């Protein structure tokens, strides 16, 4: 089974779950005065779930001829590409998200940028470090001081 039909299967199950919530569980908590209205919070989702289920079935059952043209990247031969680097970059983003609060913005951003270019094969630390540090400080200044959005600059054990 081709990937697009697998995805259609996943989307079908999402739509079924969504439809189940919309049709059977959502209206239970509806206040009595809301029930007299012609439209309920679940009305629009109910319609959407029908369309979603129908359309994913069309793709899953292959009613629409799927084109087998290979896009930019052929997913059947993923290992031919730099899969490791891509997965590491994604993992690095997750790590950044988790460390942002505890490690502070300046530290985690500098680490992210340096490690990111390290993963991609850059080894010139004397360029990477200053660039990353400058970016981190400039962006922090813009976001915190100019825009007024709080970003903890330093690790949690050093001040705010």
């Amino acid at each position, binding site marked *: 089974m*081709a*990937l*697009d039909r*697998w*995805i*259609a299967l996943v*989307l079908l199950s*999402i*739509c079924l779950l969504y439809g189940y*919530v919309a049709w059977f569980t*959502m209206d239970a908590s509806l206040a009595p005065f*809301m029930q007299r*209205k*012609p*439209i*309920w*919070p679940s*009305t*629009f*989702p109910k319609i*959407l*779930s029908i*369309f*979603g289920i129908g*359309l994913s079935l*069309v*793709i899953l059952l292959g*009613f*629409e001829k*799927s*084109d087998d043209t290979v*896009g*930019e*990247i052929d*997913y059947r031969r993923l290992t031919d*590409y*730099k899969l490791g680097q*891509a997965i590491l*970059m*994604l993992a690095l*983003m*997750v790590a*950044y*998200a*988790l460390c*942002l609060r505890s490690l502070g913005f300046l530290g985690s*951003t500098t680490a*992210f*940028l340096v490690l*990111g*270019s390290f993963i*991609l094969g*850059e080894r010139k630390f004397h360029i990477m470090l200053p*660039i990353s540090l400058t*970016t981190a400080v400039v962006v922090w200044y813009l*976001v915190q001081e*100019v*825009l007024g959005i*709080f*970003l903890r600059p330093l690790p949690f054990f050093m001040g705010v």
Partner: protein
Amino acid sequence: MLEGILIGLQTALSLQNLLMVIGGCLIGTFIGMLPGLGPMSIIAIMIPVAISLGDPSAALILLAGVYYGAIFGGSTSSILLNAPGVAGTVASSFDGYPMARQGKAGKALTIAAIASFAGGTIGAILLMIFAPMLSSVALLFHSAEYFGLMIVGLSAIAAFAGNGQVAKALLMTVLGLIMATVGLGSLFNMPRFTGGVMELQSGFGFVTLAMAMFALPEAIFLVLKPKNIGDDGGEIKDLRITRAEARSIAPVIGRQSVQGFFIGVLPGAGATIASFLGYAVERNLATKDEQEEFGKGSIKGLAAPETANNAACTGSFVPLLTLGIPGSGTTAILLGALIALNVTPGPRLMIDDPQIFWAVIMSMFIGNLVLLILNLPLIPYIAKVLAIPRNYLIPFIMFFTLMGAYIGQNNATELLLLVGFGICGIALKFANFPLPPLLIGFILGGMMEDNFARAVQLYGGISFIWERPMTLGLLIIAMTLIFLPSIRAMYARLRATGAADGD
């Protein structure tokens, strides 16, 4: 009107106000270039500055300058990085980014600048003529028609984005609409589909989704398959557009300025619908050979959404200035600023404060001119972004997607959502599912449900669909748009087998 124009020029050409326009355009362009910061957030940031000026015309002129600058800056990041920070410039990346990849980044930016200038200027002329008249037309559109109009917009996008795979594109649209229903709806005071997760109460962030569907897969694809981005980006060749190219995009610019302006006038429609509809319409009008080019770096495909979104931005001032109803999120923020400055926009504005009304219109001309003059010489420097080595550029793109998601929601959980959606986006991209319909469905979903709910409440049911001829007409157009490609494909198949030829 002449008197008004003169009053406006007198106000707009004062030294202070000229500085406001120039400063606003510059700030807007540079901040707008950062993916994730759209005009709405930049204007929101500038409001304290504008209010402290104390002069309503100067404040409105500054904010309007920021608005145009941000839209232009947003196109720049769409074209160069395929990371649209604003919904209105998503369509510009369809053809602008392929052009940049072919080493025509300079030309793409020039076309964008010229198209924006033309769209904005023609829009301002139309605003001057139609502002008083159009207020009555906009009132004819009820929620039922808005609902119909959005259905038409979504079907048009699905029909044209899928490259013949209409079911896939429609499924993506429906998925976008489904995602828009997560969180607290404005009409019903209850959280829906949050699964009890607190962070989902406010729904998914638009910027997060946009980053996850466009910028992140693009960056990962660059990691997977290194192709020298900086290949031709360093030297910007053929910055100028040839006479033949100018001749081919001139009618596009003409049509789209008018169409974009009128779409912008309708509250709620705005630059996003205008740019997508403009793209779709121009693709349909183009000749067979040119249609093939669309999506692969067609100059027409770039000029159309660029013109339309600028004209629509100008158009969105019409309901604000004449009715006091903001047509978009951005004009809603402007409305807030005006009220803070003790000016009440509405039908009385032209009578009570003519100098504000006309000064804003005049400053639109000046602002567009300033943008063109500032940006054309700056293009080679802006396009230098592409010359940054890949090893540095990719972590930076990823960092900006993360920052965009964080600034939008101010919440570290959003970053995890970003990566999660990004992985989904990559999988969908592998399987040739078109992603723009998903994002557009998501943007329009909330508005569409609100208008649908309002129409249902007014009519006590769905009878508005057949009782209002305009709604019915719009829905029929939508059906035609969806089924036409499949019927055409079926005919082609039948003819190929010789079945349809039997007479």
